[in-house]
């Protein structure tokens, strides 16, 4: 079943066409990398998928709910990790999680157990009482991931989630998210780094507001390394 459906999405900032007829469909239990150079339209797509912006043309459906007609239901099934950190540094990990839970209307009964379970999954349980300002970049990201899963979304959107992380933290978070996809989540992972994309991942390549490719990575580039294929097609530094 299609968990994330984008149909003929168009968006412009004044005279600049940021997205020009983007369409794709992603099923449950899949990891999809959305690759594109800077300025390709990734951030615009993320803003549209999270309803920070509303597109005048095209449709977005999350877990079967049309984002324009039923935004509450659609957003309730969407987990997001933004590129910018969205944590309150002065609050503890648990306070941050509670704030998010309330924003999503989760019941208070059993909430702490739910938070513990979400943190435990990402090996963050012992950090629950720490202030976020005391955590390193990798732990903050893991916390944001745990938070994005707290309301049990069916679609997980991550916008360049490894920016600013060291190699070990990057590898860990890429691994975690692949595991989540294996367990049934529909994952859309935007990046401009080709080394985060595995050969058997589904790949969308966005360039100048249009999709250049939509398929399994190895089918798209064949024997050519993804980086070379990507540079060749987009003419941009990855």
């Amino acid at each position: 079943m299609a968990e994330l459906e984008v149909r003929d999405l168009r968006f412009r900032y004044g005279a600049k066409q940021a997205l020009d007829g983007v369409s794709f469909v992603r099923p449950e239990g899949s990891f999809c990398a959305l690759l594109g150079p800077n300025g390709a339209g990734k951030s615009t797509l993320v803003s549209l998928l999270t309803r920070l912006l509303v597109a005048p043309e095209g449709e977005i459906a999350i877990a079967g709910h049309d984002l324009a007609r039923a935004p509450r239901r659609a957003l309730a099934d969407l987990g997001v990790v933004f590129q910018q950190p969205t944590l309150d540094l002065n609050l503890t990990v648990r306070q941050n999680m509670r704030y998010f839970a309330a924003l999503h209307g989760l019941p208070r009964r059993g909430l702490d157990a739910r938070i513990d379970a979400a943190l435990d999954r990402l090996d963050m349980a012992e950090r629950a009482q720490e202030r976020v300002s005391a955590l390193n970049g990798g732990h903050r990201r893991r916390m944001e991931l745990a938070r994005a899963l707290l309301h049990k979304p069916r679609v997980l959107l991550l916008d360049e989630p490894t920016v600013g992380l060291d190699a070990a933290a990057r590898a860990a978070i890429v691994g975690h998210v692949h595991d989540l996809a294996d367990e049934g989540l529909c994952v859309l992972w935007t990046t401009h780094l080709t080394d985060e994309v595995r050969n058997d991942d589904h790949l969308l390549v966005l360039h100048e507001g249009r999709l250049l490719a939509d398929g399994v990575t190895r089918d798209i580039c064949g024997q050519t390394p993804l980086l070379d294929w990507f540079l060749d097609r987009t003419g941009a530094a990855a």
Partner: protein
Amino acid sequence: MTGYWGVARAIMGREFLRFVHQRERFLAALVRPLIWLLVFAAGFRAALGLSIIPPYQTYITYETYIVPGLCAMVLLFNGMQSSLSLVYDREMGSMRLLLTSPFPRWWLLFCRLLGATLISVLQVYAFLGIAALFDITMPLWGYVAVLPGLVLGGLMLGALGLVLSSFITQLENFAGVMNFVIFPMFFLSSALYPLWKMAESSELLHDICAFNPFTHVVELIRFLLYLQINWSALAWVLGSTAVLAALAIRAYDPSRALMKRKG
């Protein structure tokens, strides 16, 4: 509907925790009106003679006259402060977290506004408490009666802050708000001098002051402190709140262009 109250509690709780963590902000919010009250007013009491005007029934000292204006000043500065923190939130990304909540945007913004207002009101009471220590007191029940006026005035000025925050692209631009919003609003009002005094020097200035919604916040507070209702001030403040709130909701509407470059 379930969850609405939980969202309100969480957003207001976060505002409160943030406030507690910024003790300097609390001190600044108290020191500012106290300087006006204890220094400025002391210096000017001789220069500015006041006649008996409603709601006062006897001659009053200048310090007593400017207390309502200074209460409104606390609300004004806090409204702008919360606008500043909205711009900060947008730059830091936590605005995205708020706006991607499945609850309606107007409710999220309203809760944010109410949270900031309640913090302002706490500061006003702290100010009134200190003023009372200096023997500048109001009728006892006036302190209770003024509460709805403070909340309404706080909402109006907070809504103004929301509207402004949608136009301010960077934190650095905030100095402009000081110059072009806070100072004109405060000085072109009845906070420091009654409107009839203003009319003596310039009819035009008087008319501007009478048009300034901040004047009506001050007058609403002034009358409530003396257990009276200034109906025209109340109508002005209600109307201004409705207009500003509508503008704020429009400014934060995802389908409008305002957030495109900044959100």
